[in-house]
């Protein structure tokens, strides 16, 4: 005989779905259609996605921060003091509202209260964009190197080029790494708005990634090319006289106290005059002539980071300051000084690199021609900011 009796049901304890009808538009009531962040003014007509996830996250007592900063350093100062740079944006000299018993919130209606808050990163970087971009880069770099391995591309390299890559291209990884960490990442604590600091932190990751790209490329070459000395870059960086000017300068850049000066010196001066000289006027030109089509793809990724993204936010940031309605003259004078100082140092470092031009078997275009090109590009950048070309450029 069979039984048709059901076994007792065991009901698991789980939350039950409930129809709540809590979706937008289900009812009309005050604010039911107010579906945009209403606490900030967009740069353009419409609020962008980037602005929505970035603006005002880092507070400012000149806006809504009614109870003020709550924790300070030993000197009693909290938050993001404006005098962490000597540059000024309009409103910088106006004191924060003096709140106290019975004062109310004293929310600043005339917003932005300082020109600092007008900055928007033209790259509109936030997490979605930065991971997409950098993932694409590392994937492409990896694929390029893998394809080169598969086609035995490294076998085309002559011995001198192998030495050049192991020593000099390897040495550049230290510049990227040192600046990425101790200049850019360091500066992400210093600027007065979230828009500045997020852009700077993305810049930092570009440089650290580029450094690691070079290090891992170096590792691959050690595995693929017999006799490739994967540690030669250390000796070059530490002791090769051609590199000591760059190293000295890179260390000076990380020693800058003022965060605006650090970004200006690195992205407006050093990168065009030294970074692009090395990458675009030396490596990219010499590699193909020496049978190397792979290295330019690795170096080119870093070049694109700088030329198309990092320089873009940097010029947008400094253009605001050189066109500031209150402090344009003040800012231009300081930036001109910075441009002079760092141009002289950068050109000295660049010239110290000159022996590298003669090392490959197939020579790149002349050092002076490359230097002229980067000087011309640099000149265009500073002039676009409303600054005069520094006289030191003639050195």
């Amino acid at each position, binding site marked *: 005989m069979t039984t048709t009796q059901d076994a007792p049901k065991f009901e698991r304890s789980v*939350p039950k779905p409930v129809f709540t*009808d*809590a*979706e*937008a*538009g289900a*009812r009309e*009531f*005050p*604010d039911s*259609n*107010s*579906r945009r*962040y*209403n606490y*900030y003014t967009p740069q353009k007509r419409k609020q962008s*996605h980037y602005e*929505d*996830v970035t603006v*005002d*996250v*880092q*507070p400012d007592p000149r*806006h*809504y921060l009614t*109870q*003020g900063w*709550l924790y*300070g350093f*030993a000197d009693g100062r*909290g938050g993001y003091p404006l005098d962490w740079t000597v540059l000024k944006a309009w409103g910088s000299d106006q004191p924060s509202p003096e709140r106290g018993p*019975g004062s109310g*919130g004293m929310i600043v209606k005339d917003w932005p209260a300082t020109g600092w808050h007008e900055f928007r990163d033209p790259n509109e970087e936030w*997490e*979605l964009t930065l*991971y*997409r971009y*950098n*993932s694409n880069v590392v994937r492409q770099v990896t694929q390029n190197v893998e394809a080169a391995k598969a086609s035995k591309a490294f076998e085309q390299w002559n011995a001198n080029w192998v030495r050049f890559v192991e020593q000099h291209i390897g040495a550049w*990884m230290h510049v990227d790494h*040192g600046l*990425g960490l*101790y200049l850019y*990442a*360091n500066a*992400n*604590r210093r600027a007065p708005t979230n828009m500045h600091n*997020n852009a700077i*932190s993305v810049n*930092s*990751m570009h440089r*650290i990634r580029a450094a*690691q790209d070079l290090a891992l490329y170096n*590792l691959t070459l050690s595995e693929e090319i017999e006799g490739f000395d*994967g540690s030669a*870059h250390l000796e070059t*960086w530490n002791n090769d006289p051609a590199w000591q000017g760059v190293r000295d300068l890179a*260390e*000076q850049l990380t*020693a800058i106290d003022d965060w605006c000066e650090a970004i200006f010196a690195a992205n407006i001066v050093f990168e065009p005059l030294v970074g692009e000289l090395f990458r675009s006027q030396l490596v990219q030109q010499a590699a193909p002539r020496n049978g190397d089509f792979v290295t330019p793809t690795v170096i080119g990724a870093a070049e694109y980071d700088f030329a198309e993204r990092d320089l873009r936010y940097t010029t947008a940031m400094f253009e605001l300051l050189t066109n500031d309605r209150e402090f344009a003259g003040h800012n231009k004078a300081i930036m001109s000084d910075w441009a002079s100082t760092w141009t002289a140092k950068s050109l000295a470092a660049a010239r110290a690199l000159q022996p590298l031009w003669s090392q490959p078997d197939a020579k790149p275009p002349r050092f002076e021609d490359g230097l002229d090109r980067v000087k011309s590009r640099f000149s265009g950048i500073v002039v676009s900011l409303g600054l005069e070309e520094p006289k030191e450029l003639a050195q």
Partner: protein
Amino acid sequence: MSRQSVAKAHQKIQELSWEPAYHEPVSHYGTDYTFQKAQKKDPLKQVLRSYFPMQEEKDHRVYGASDGAIRGNMFRQVQERWLEWQKLFLSIIPLPEISAARAMPLLFRTVPNPELHNGQAIQMIDEVRHSTIQQNLKRLYMNNYIDPAGFNSSLRNFQSDYCGTIGRQFAEGFITGDAITAASIYLTIVAETAFTNTLFVAMPAEAAANGDYLLPTVFHSVQSDESRHISNGYATLLMALADEGNHQLLARDLRYAWWNNHRVVDAAIGTFIEYGTKDRRKDRESYAEMWRRWIYDDYYRSYLVPLEKYGLEIPHDLIEESWNQIWNKGYVHEVAQFFATGWLANYWRIDPMTDKDFEWFEYKYPGWYDKYGAWWENYNRLSMPNGHKPIVFEDVDYEYPHRCWTCMVPCLVREDMVMAKVDGQWRTYCHDMCRWTDEVAFRPTYQGRQTPNMGKLIGHREWETLYHGWNWADVVSDMGFVRDDGKTMVAQPHLDLNPDKMWTLDHLRKCPPLASPNVLLNEMSDDERTAFAARYVRGGPAGRAPADA
């Protein structure tokens, strides 16, 4: 990643760092700790070539789920009681996240270990991820949830309101003061290692139970980064422990950081989980049970206690006292009751508790109804405007509390309130530990030792001070917590969106002016102040006046 193993790649990138030969990097931040160079390893071997694609893949999952939630009409099943509390939580949390990014440079010059700097830089960009992904989640709620009020004004609210200010400690504490106290002990050793468990694991589970699977999607994705951050903190802690001269400071900082995290995080997350849920299954864990599992067992017993043998002085007494506060002194219930008492100063709606809620509370916290039941019945009775005033002005046997100067949560466990004259001002503290933090820890000397890098408590730490003597309608207008008709309040003590049942500025206009407890305290004579304190500590639970008053 290519066929190169991660371990090999990580080994290779160690070649990137160099010792300065010509100029030292700028040193912006000080510490009273001392470190010897050491080869502490990054056990998670973080390399950007694998990191970026990993994060992108996590993003695909998060944004895919977001699209699915909208297409699948998730908001038809979301509990409003739950989503309303997200207006508070998601106004707070993006700032702590981004502050953690800003905190990383504090460690570069103070912790001499380049291998760790690499991990800290990756943590920096993780935190940018967390902050913006959370802002994006809030934006999605604003666009798709029935009531956008409070989401749409989120960061203004957060930066103006006392609740936001309490939460703001969980950000500013990371980026100021002694670099190690802030960016290592407070941020990574306590906040991330202990309390992200309740923030990012326990709370999302409750969200899912309330029909919201986007919060778990985003926050579990966030939490998956935390293990790397915890690893950064652990390596730094071991380096600090290696120098016996640091042990005294470690003991101080663990006490401060533990207690402040307990006061702030348990107040907020405890309230969200216990009072923001509609899931009243008896076998679902209470906040106290979660705390016992995630914080007491997983953090205290498994992480902290084993460090004792390396010389770390563990604040056993404070961990037990925190549990005592949660279990015996009703800390979370007192906080939730205060939030609801002061609903009119908020920017979200607070649903009254029902019989079903009462039953659950009584089951999970025996004796709850005798303490809090009558008050919540009054809250329900007074939730719709009907000729009476908001509950804070009505006679429901609740005395408005004084605020703790340090943690800024009010002094709700009345018997624990202490008072001290500090920096020329009479201040109240919710517990003697908070007095100690202000009067002893955040000072330039500690137990006779010079601590010149220790930070300071600054700011207008009692919100009520700013509005002392103001009419409540003007207070709410000034803070901007008003809907687009210019009169209906964003906050409501119920969930009914019928405009006829919503409180407006007109109702508030008839209420008594706001009085700052701290201003009044400082106006008292010494005798009056002594009498006040003696009476205050006899009050409670549930905000009741002393039985013999």
